[in-house]
Each structure stands twice: as C-alpha cells, then as structure tokens.
C-alpha cells in the first residue's frame, strides 16, 4: 500500500467543496482548482514543501469547472453564474467569453480545434473560440449537460437521463453518435482516453464503463463496465458514486475516485485494478494526473457524494493531495 511519505497536502486549499481540479497540460506543477468558494485557485505544486497558491480568481458565484487552454497563460472557468470566463493568471482578471441560460457545469479545451467547449444545465453546449468569442456556436442538446470530455476531434457529452452524445468537433451541427450510457444510473463523469480510442464514464452507482468511439460492432463488443467503490458496512454493500476519473497521460491507465474516499488505479485494457490507495477521509471530488504522469492530484471534499443530504461541506474535509507516483506506478499490465 501507499506510503504517506510520497504524498502531501497542498497548503491553503479552497474553503469550500472542490468542483474540479486539473493539472496543466504544459507544466507538471501547475494545478488549477475550481471550488464552490467562488474562486478558481492556481497552485504551484512544486513550490516549497507543500506547494503554494499562485493566484485565486474570484467569481460571482460558485465555480463548477475549470481548465487550461493552449498555454498556462490562458485559463478557463465556468460556474453557477452562467458564464464561461477566460482568466488571466497575470492579472487575476476574468473576461467573459460566453453566457449560458443556466449554470455551466462542464468545460474542456480542445487542442486540435483550439476551441473551448462548455456544457450547461440549460441543455446546450457552446463551442467557443477564445480568440474570437463572438463566433461562439451554440448547440442545443436534449438534456442537461453533466460532463464533457474531448480528445483529438471528438467530444463526449454526458447528459442527464443517461444520454451520451458523441460529436465530431469539425461538424457540430449534429451528433456523430447518440448513445445511451451503459450504466443504469446517472452519469457523473466522462473522460476520454489519451489515445483517442474511447472514453470512460462513471455513474453515481459505483460503476465505471469503458467504451470505444469506433461504432463498428467489433469495436463496440469491447466495451465493458465494472463495479467499484463499494464497501461492506454492517452486512450491506454500500455503493458510492464515482465522482472523478482521470487518465494517465502516458500509460493510458486511469484513476477513479469515489464517494467512499478511495482512489483506485485501473488498467482499462487489461481490465485489471492496478492499485487502490488508502481511503481518504472524505469523498473524492476531483482527480488529475500531471502531464508527465508523475503526480496525481486528488481533491477531497464531503457532500452529496458521500450520502450527506445537506450538501454542507465541513471545511476540514476540503483537501488537495498531491501524490507522487513511483516509477512504474500506474503502468498497465504488460506495458513495457
């Protein structure tokens, strides 16, 4: 099992529930965290003993998602204030790129098309070119958007009612594929594989599905789902939601974080669990691998994810843990 020695807690974590966190695709020590404390926090995980906060971008309302753009100098955020903003880490100022009709749940940046995708509870996604926000395209969806993920030219849109649409970003006028989630319960997160072959999705009922883009039957046969994040408490199997997924940028394995506070490492190809880390005291809210695959950032905060009806989050449960992966940790079975 893991040694606490190879992980540390970031100093000055957000004051409220973490909604998302992501490492910079360009810099292995830049970590962006969005939180319900109405801020987006930018950390340098390498600075000092426990990292340090570089900037905090205040927002009008809770921030639900954040991501890096082309460079570390462009950071995007979206949240309950309906807006998608571009943040400038130099000045700490925000610039509104687009406004939805409801809270914006998820954003992601596509490097191929250099566009930002935002999905909102208003049942639409917007494709935004950060350089010319005027040319934003809006695309109505049948349901509330819960999670977006993009890789190469593909966009996966996970919506309520277990609906999953796949788009080709070069042709957003209609979905490339319309799918129903392989999981029986509400989709929590989707994440694309770094090799652009498929995506993993997780549900609130302790399951993760791995599916492939290729619509051919042969390829579709490879899809599968598995149970995880369950624990036996008093003779009853308690099933936790799987809140976070993150693919390892190099090995293509992925980590899942559940409401039970457990982070597991999976080899999606070999269908094996590689590691399961010690249980963290609160629900896992976000996961992200650094671009070099050496670190895994884990955000924890308690709330609905672990069955807490109030949605109240004790501040002490909000933590960002950066885990240093050992050599080969996270490497799939049979990979050299």
């Amino acid at each position, binding site marked *: 099992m893991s040694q606490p020695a190879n992980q540390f807690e970031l100093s000055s974590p957000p004051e409220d*529930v973490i*909604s998302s966190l992501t490492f910079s695709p360009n810099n292995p020590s830049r970590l962006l965290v969005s939180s*319900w404390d109405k801020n987006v926090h930018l950390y340098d995980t390498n600075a000092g003993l426990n990292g340090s906060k570089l900037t905090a971008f205040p927002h*009008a*309302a*809770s921030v*639900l998602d954040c991501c890096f753009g082309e460079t570390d100098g462009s950071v995007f955020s979206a949240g*309950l*204030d*309906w*807006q998608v903003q571009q943040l400038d880490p130099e000045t700490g100022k925000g610039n509104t790129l687009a*406004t939805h*009709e*409801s*809270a914006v*749940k998820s954003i992601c940046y596509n490097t191929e098309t250099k566009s930002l995708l935002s999905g909102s*509870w*208003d*049942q*639409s996604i917007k494709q935004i070119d950060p350089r010319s926000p005027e040319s934003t395209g*809006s695309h*109505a969806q049948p349901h*509330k958007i*819960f999670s977006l993920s993009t890789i190469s030219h593909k966009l996966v849109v996970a919506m*309520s*009612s277990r609906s999953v649409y796949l788009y080709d970003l070069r042709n957003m006028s209609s979905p490339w594929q319309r799918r129903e989630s392989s999981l*029986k*319960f*509400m989709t*929590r997160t989707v994440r694309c594989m770094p090799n652009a072959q498929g995506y993993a999705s997780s549900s*609130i*009922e*302790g399951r993760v599905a791995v599916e492939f883009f290729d619509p051919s039957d042969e390829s579709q046969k490879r899809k599968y789902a598995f149970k995880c994040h*369950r624990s*036996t408490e008093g*003779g*009853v*199997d*308690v*099933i*936790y*939601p799987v*809140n976070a997924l993150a693919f390892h940028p190099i090995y293509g394995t992925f980590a899942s974080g559940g*409401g*039970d506070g457990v982070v597991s490492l999976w080899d999606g190809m070999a269908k094996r669990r590689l590691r399961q880390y010690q249980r963290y005291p609160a629900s896992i809210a976000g996961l992200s691998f650094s671009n070099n695959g050496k670190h895994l950032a884990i955000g924890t905060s308690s*709330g*609905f*994810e*672990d*069955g807490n*009806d*109030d*949605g*109240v989050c004790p501040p002490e449960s909000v933590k960002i843990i950066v885990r240093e992966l050992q050599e080969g940790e996270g490497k799939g079975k049979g990979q050299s």
Partner: protein
Amino acid sequence: MADDDTTSFDQIELHKENIQPLASGRSARALVASLSSRSNPVLARAEHAAKQAEFEEELRGSLDLDDPLEVWVRYVSWTQETFPSGHSTDSGLLQLLERATQTFIHEQHYKNDPRYLRLWIQYIQNFSDAPREAFAYLARHDIGQRLALFYEEYAALLEKMGRKRQAGEIYQTGMENNARPTDRLLRKFEEYMQRLEHDPPAGDEPSSPALPAIRPALAAKPFGGGLSSGGLGTSPATQQQPQAPQPKPKQAKQKMAIFSDADAAPSSKAPNTIEKPTSGWENIGTLEQRKKENTIEARPWAGEVLKQEGVKAKSAEKMMIFRDESSLPKQNVPHVQQNVLPTSLPSNKRPERVAVNLELIYADEENPTEELSFDELRAIKRGQYGIDWNRIREEQAEEARERRRKNTHRGEVAEESRTPIKVKTVLSPSPNRGKIKRKGQAPASPTMTFHTRAATDEIYDIFNQPMKKTSMTGEDRDEDRKESGPEGGDGEDDDEDAGSVKSEWSDFTLRRDVPPRDSEEEEEEEVEGSPEVESAKAGFEKLAIHQDEPKAGGRTAIHRDEPSDEEPDLPSRPAPHKILIPSPPDDFDPPRLPYHAAKETQFQGQSRLPYMTPIAEKTESLPPTTARRKDVAKTPSRSRMPDIVDDNLMSSPFEESTNNSVFPPPLVPSQPAPSAAPARVPKERRPFSARPVAAARAKEATQKGPIIQDLQCNPMDESLRANIFDKLQPPLKTYEGFYEHTTKFGRGAEIKRFTKAMSKRDGEKTTANISQAPIVEFVTGDGGSSYTIKRELGKGAFAPVYLVENNIVADAEDEAEEAGPDDENAADLLSLNKKIIGRARFEAMKMEHPPSPWEFYIMRQAHRRLGVSRPVESILKAHEMHLFTDEGYLLLEYRDQGTILDLVNIARAEVGTGTNTGVMDEQLVMFLSIELLRTVEAMHSKGLLHGDLKADNCLIRFENTPDNTWSARYRRDGSNGWFKKGITLIDFGRGIDMKLFQPTVQFIADWKTDNQDCAEMRELRPWTYQVDYFGLAAIIHSMLFGKYIETTADRGNILGGGTKKYKITSSFKRYWQTEIWSSMFDVLLNPLQYVMDEESTCMPVSKSVRKCREEMEAWLEANCEKGVGLKNLIRRMEGVLGKRR
C-alpha cells in the same frame, strides 16, 4: 447450611425448579451438596469431570467384572445426584443412559434384571421421543418380559395416552408371562380395572394389539410406523440367541415377536420367530440417530444456495390494510427509487445500498427520468440555483454603468430558499408578457393536460430554451385562444377576442382584500393602454367574474417582467388596463416597489423548478379528463362569480346567509334579485362593479334552486366545483379565515425538500438543520399569520400534510410564560389576541397543488350546519385557507393520536401476545362504530357527504380526561366524560354538499374503482349516500376483522334475480354480537333496501342507521364493564397511541 447434620432446605428451595424429580426420590443431602457446589462452578466442573473420568475408567474395565451393570447403575445414579437438573451437556445423562442401555441389550442375564430395566425406563420416560415404540422394542428384545415393572410402566403409559384397552392387554400379557412380583402386577391391574369402570374407554380408541402380532405379509415393513429410522432393514439378526432359560409360554413369545424378515421367511416361517425375535429391529437408535433427518449434514459449500431471510420476511407480512401514503407514484418509478436495490435476483449477494440519496436525485416523483446532479442539488440547497444571472448582471451594469452587457436574455429568476417569503398580493404589472412568450414556444399543450414525461419534457423545453425575443404575435394569440377554449364548454358564448382578454385578465386579478398597486404599473398602463369600449366591457365582465375566483394555479406560465424592459412588441396586450385600475382600499399600504419586484422574482424563481414541484399532484380519484384539467388550469366559468355581497361578511360570513338563503338552495326558488346585490357593493368597488357585473348577474339570475341542475354528474368534477364556487352565496371569500392571494406562492418544493430531509434525519441523531425550518408567512388584510414547518404528518391522496407551529400562538404563549401569571398584560395577550382564540400552538397544514378550496368549504359547511352539537366535535376544524394561484394551504386542527387504521394495526401487531386475537376488542369497535355512525348520520341529515370514509381518514379523539370525570360505564349521551372520547373525521376533499344539487341527483364516479369503493361505483351505477355507508362498513369491517372489506352479492332465491343483497364475506366470531353487526352491515351495504322505512322514502336511510346505532349503544351500556372494560380499553389505547408519538 447450618451444620453437617442438618440439611439446609433453603438451598433446595432456591433451586427447586431446577431439580428434576426422580421416581425414587432424591436425597436432600446429596441435593444440597450438589447445589452448593454451584457456588464455584469452575471448581465444580473440574470435580465433575474428574469423577466422570473415574467412572469412564471403571467402565472400561467393567467387562471383566461379574456385574458390569453395577458400574453403570452407580454412574447413572451419581450423575442424577450431581446434576439435579437432569440432562445437560455437563451431565451427559442422555448419552450415558443410551450407552448403558445399548451395552447390555443382548446380554441374556440382564434381560430381566430390574436395574437394567430401570435404566431403560428412565431413558424412555425422560428422553424417548416415542415411548410406545421403545416399549415395543424392549418387548421384542425380550427385555424385562418377566418383570412386572415393564408391564406396569407400559400399561401406565398407554393408559395415559388414552389407549386403555391396550393397557389392559399389556397387564394381561404381563400376568400371562408370570412377571414378578406377580402380586403387585395383579394389584395394579385391579386398580386399573377400577379406573376403567369409572371411565370406560372411548369407542374410538385404537383397538389394535398393543404389541402387534407378527404379520408375515407386512414383515418387511417397519413396525408401528414411527420406527422408520433405527436399524431397520439391516441384515437379519445374527447374534440374537434364542432365550432358552426363560420358560415362557410360546404363545406370548409369538405375540412379542413381531417381525419376520422377508428373506428369512421361507426358512424360518412362523414357529421360528423365537430364533429371530428381533430381526429387522436391531436397534432403536439413539435419540440423535432418530432425529438425524432434522440435522443438516455437513457438505461442501460449493454450489450451495443459501436462502435469504429477506424474502421470507416479505411473505410474512400479512398486513393487508392499505396505508394511503400516496406511494403509488413511487411504484411506477423505475428501480432507482429505492435506495436498496432489488436483491432478489442474485440471492447469494449481500444487500446493496446506494450511498447517494436517490430520492434527492430523482426528486420529481412524477417524472423519474429527470434527475438532479449533485451540483444542482448543492446549488439548490444553497439557494444558488435558478438565479437569473443575466438579470443580476444587467442590474449591476445599469447601476454601476461599468460594463456593457451584450446579451440580455430574460430568464431565470432568483430564489432565496431559506428566508421566509412574505407573500404580498401584488398586481402583476404586465400579466401577459412573459407568459405569452413562454406559451408561444410550447407546442400545442399550453395547459399541461396530462402530466406525462413528454409533457414535462415539453415544459422543460419551454423553460430551458434560450429566449427568442421575437416569438410573439399571432402564434401567441393562438395559444391564448386555446387556453380559453374550455370557457365555451361552460356555456359562455364569448367570442374569441373576449376569451383572450379574459385569460389575460385572469392574471390581472384584482381583489378587494389585497388590491395594492404601484406607480410603476400605472405608468405602464398608461403607456400601453388605449381603451376600446368593446373590449373594455368584456374585460370588466371578466374582471368582475374573476376577482374572487379560487385560482387553481395550474398555469405553468410565469410573468416575466423586467423593470428596465422596453420591449416594443407587446401585441395582444389588452387595452383597457388603464381604466380598470381601481383605487385601493384605504386600509392597505401599497407595497414598495423594490420589495415587490424582488418578491415577485422569487416566485418566478420558484417556478423555474418545475420538476421540483410536480405540476399536478392529482389524486387517483380524478380521472385525467382533458376538460377537467383544462379547467383546473384556467379557473373556468369565471363569469359566473357573483359580486361580493357586503363588506361585513368578511368578518362574519354567515350573518347574511339567512337573507340570501342560499343554503339550503333547493328550498329557495330563486336567488336574490340581481338588482339587490349591486346596492350593497362597497363604494370603493364601484369602479368594477358597474354594468358588466350586472350583466353577468343578469345571466345568473336565471339560475334557480340548487346550483347544479344536472341529475347525474361526477361530484368531484373540477369544473362543476368551480361552477359551484362561482355561484355560492355568500361567496367563499367571505368565509372567515379564507384568503385568496393572486400570487404564486411557490414554497411547496422547498417545504417538501425540508420535510424529506427531516424524515431522513429522524433516523439519525443530528438535528442540525432544524433551525432552518421553513417559515411560511401569509400576509393578509388583518395582519397575516406565520407558521414554522415542523415535519410531514402524512401524504394524503390529495396533498401532503405538515405539522406546523403557529408562530403567533407560540409567541403569545412564550410571552405569557415569560411575563408570568400575575402580569395582566400577559393575560391580555392570550385572551385579547383574537387571532389565537381557538387556535393551538401546533396545527396541521395541508398543502395542495393545484389548490382547491373545496375541502375548506365542506368543513366549514359541516361546522356551520351542525352548529354546536356533539357530532361537530367529530369533524376537524379548518382554521384558515390560503389560496394561491399555484398552491393552497389549509390550516387545520392538529390531533396527534393517530387514526383508526393505527388502532387496527396496533391490534394486529399484538397477535399472539396473551389473549389477543389480532383484531380490536369488540367493545372498542362497537364504541368507535357508534361514534362513526353518529357523526355520519348527522352530516347526512345536513346534506353533507364525506365521500372518502376510510380508516385512515378517522383520527382518534381521546381527549385527556381525569379519571374522576370519566365513568367506567358507557353513557350514550356523552355524559360523564364520554363525549371527550371519539373520533374526528378528516380529509373532506371528496366531500359533497347535497344542497347544491337537485334532490334527485345521482352521482357517477368515473374514476377507477376497487374493492374499497362502494358497490354502486364498482358496478358503474349511480350513487349518493351509498359512498359513505360503504365507507362506514369498510372502516368497521377493518376494525372487526383487521382486514379489508370484501363483499359478495346475493340475489336471493328469487328466480331471475331480485334485488342484489350485499354481504361481507368474513364471518363473525361466535361470541360477538352477531345480530347487531349483521344488521348493521346489512343496512350499510344495502341502504336502498331500507329507504322504505324512511319517512321520505329516499336516501339517506338515517332511521335504519340510527336504529343500528341505538342497538349498539344499548348493548354497550349494558356490557361496557365486562371483561377488561371499555374504559380500560380506551385508556390502554391512549397509552399505546401516546407512546407512538
């Protein structure tokens, strides 16, 4: 122990229950010794073990002894002395006896040793599960055949079993065998004969031989049936030797020799049986062997299936009484509704529980596919959901003039979920704008006729689509027309234009009790209004009609209004607004604009969450007919609303009623002349009540007698009810405590969430959130009222009921408490505050959406018509009714003692304890039945039907009575404290006021019926009072039998079928008052057959019902003190019901 020589009997006394009696008696000294050794069990056990080991050692060598049996006998007697309580794991007496008896079974010289036989008898008496077979076995093995003891014991056993003939037979066999001591046996036999004389054997006792003779044909079969285990079917006897020494009569031997093995038969035939006396019955087996079928053999677990306990539990739940918790919608919901997933399929899996609260996620019961993500839930919890950020930003921008907003969508609006919302009835400045826009995008289903998923999705689309600013004009008109469609069905021939005006005006409701207006509106009106005489007239008419109309709030439309809005295109704006603005009554402060605006946005924000507030929580009783739902949505027939009669009626609604004499209408030929009413119209209302009202009235004047002229109708029909409200005299709004608000309230979702969270929390210890209990405030003309939601009391079929704390009463009480009893002010506070007279700190609040004042109306009518009487105590009080356009709040008296259903269930839960039979005691049932019959009888005599009588609609009313004011003897007149005990009827939502109908009216029910509906409904025949009679029968049936009523129809003997006669299928207990009960059920189930006994020869059959009740009362008065006594029964129930809270 005193000293060594005397024996302390104290010790024995203490343990006497644990001492197994021995035939030979016990030595007191030995007993004391063994009992006192218990003071140190560890030591004692060690000692015993040592002694046992010693014996075992001795036993091993015993075969060399001359008398090995002696060791066994000593061992057994030591064991019995040392372990006075008989067999236990420590003593091992059973095993010891088994070993001892088995050891010598083939020892010839012990066969007639009395000590050996005694061991056997001990074994048989104490342990054997089939003593008769054991004796037969002994006989077969020739054990004790020469000993009188054997025959005595066997005969005694048989005699005890009632096989007296066989016992005699055994005695005779014994005597034939010359068993010794012969004299004793003879003596016993004589005693037996004497007993036999006194009590001759019954004719039916078994006459087969006690020791069955050998029957070769059956020889292979087991003997005696009960001996299937043992060593049956083993190879023929090998070791058994013929018993040469004993001179026994051959005859007897044959009798004893029972078995003849089939294989051995050819060679050994009958005479040879001596040589193989035990063939086929080698061994009677140890107790353990004999029970071996009962023990599960250890097997490998692979592939084994373990039965789950949970499955069993389900079948064990015999509870059939229906609990009306409106759980029905839940069952339609897919698997996700239950937190515990179905576990029946993979039965070897552990039960699973989803950590997430799925009820929150799938919050909308009506629409299970709509889900809320965690983030949405959190946003909702924090009150950050549905905030109109565009608008906020717009305002900010405008205020600060810093940022240019580029996109001003109108849209979602703020909601502050935790702060109490003050309801101000406000004029909506532009009633149609936002609404029409929304409507414009709703394809073809503006009134949400069916609440299907598709419909919800549609609404969703409406709500979630980005605004299209230009989608107005013609399309919108269409929608309006559609909306006003049903109006025509009400018999109005307004043209379409009028219709559209009307529907717009329906939002622009002006009401006398809260008619504020603000300057902004006026400005707007002036800007936009350009009156046209024609439409103005129509508008007036609509307005007059509509003003006090209960708003059914089915509208999904919301006013969208932006203060800064300068939209030019408001096409179908009705012109006459400007003229219509009334001058507000003097006693009202016009609401301040910012506040007003803010509040209004709140309401809009609430309605932004349509999935949290199911649009229509309809009872199953109301069939989804399009017409009705449309009516609900748009408050039909508003043109019939008469004008209010007088201002004074506000405070005392019934003073005028005699003049108006609407009640009872059937007796009145016509309503007051239309010209009379306008004269009474208060001055400030003049502006509206001018000619259009008169015109409307003129139409009405044609109405005569009962409001509803139909001779057959569905009394629950919404349009019919709306019609009634229209024509009611005095109008409903004059009832005290009735408040109609023109606004939406929109708190339903929040309250539901809170109570849901509360009920969750009940299981846990946390009470953290209690401080955030929603406070519901109603702002009314006389100061308003405020209630803190405590918890959910129940979900009726119609609407949830909450326990609320009346904050006014609570404050007053608290203040009075603080002030102390001496303070005069305190007394004043309590007594002078009119608002708290007759009110209690805890009250019940029923939330309905769509709202309907019907229940309030029926309850008020019941109280009014019954006046001050005993039955009125049994009808729940309605304190206030707040009617909003979206929700209705009915404030009711709170009774915390549960319902009759609870009593039934309590009785059922007590099955098996003591004498309880699982149903309620007859006395108590009788008592409650009398209460029920009296109440319903009284209501019927006043022309009121309850319409939904069932056990869970009858609250228990056992008021606190000191013992000395309440006699044990039942008094039918209610004296001596008995009037304080009874029931309270609730849920008048299906009530019917017969005085609104023609005397010969018949009702039809078009809803789905089941066994709990009366026969007429089930058979689609018209009905009236039957509904209540059947309800009564059902309640009484469930009390008597603890299960649902089931009836059968009996056509009697008349060929071709006489009148059907209904009977209950359950049969009465023999000791019940079957005559009373059966005649009562007969009346209640077949009321039509009793109408001839009535003076009126028509329903209700009060006379017959009264007769039943009086019989019951007479019986109860005579018998109430028998057994436990009625008073004690009630006291006990009070205790149980109290404990449950």
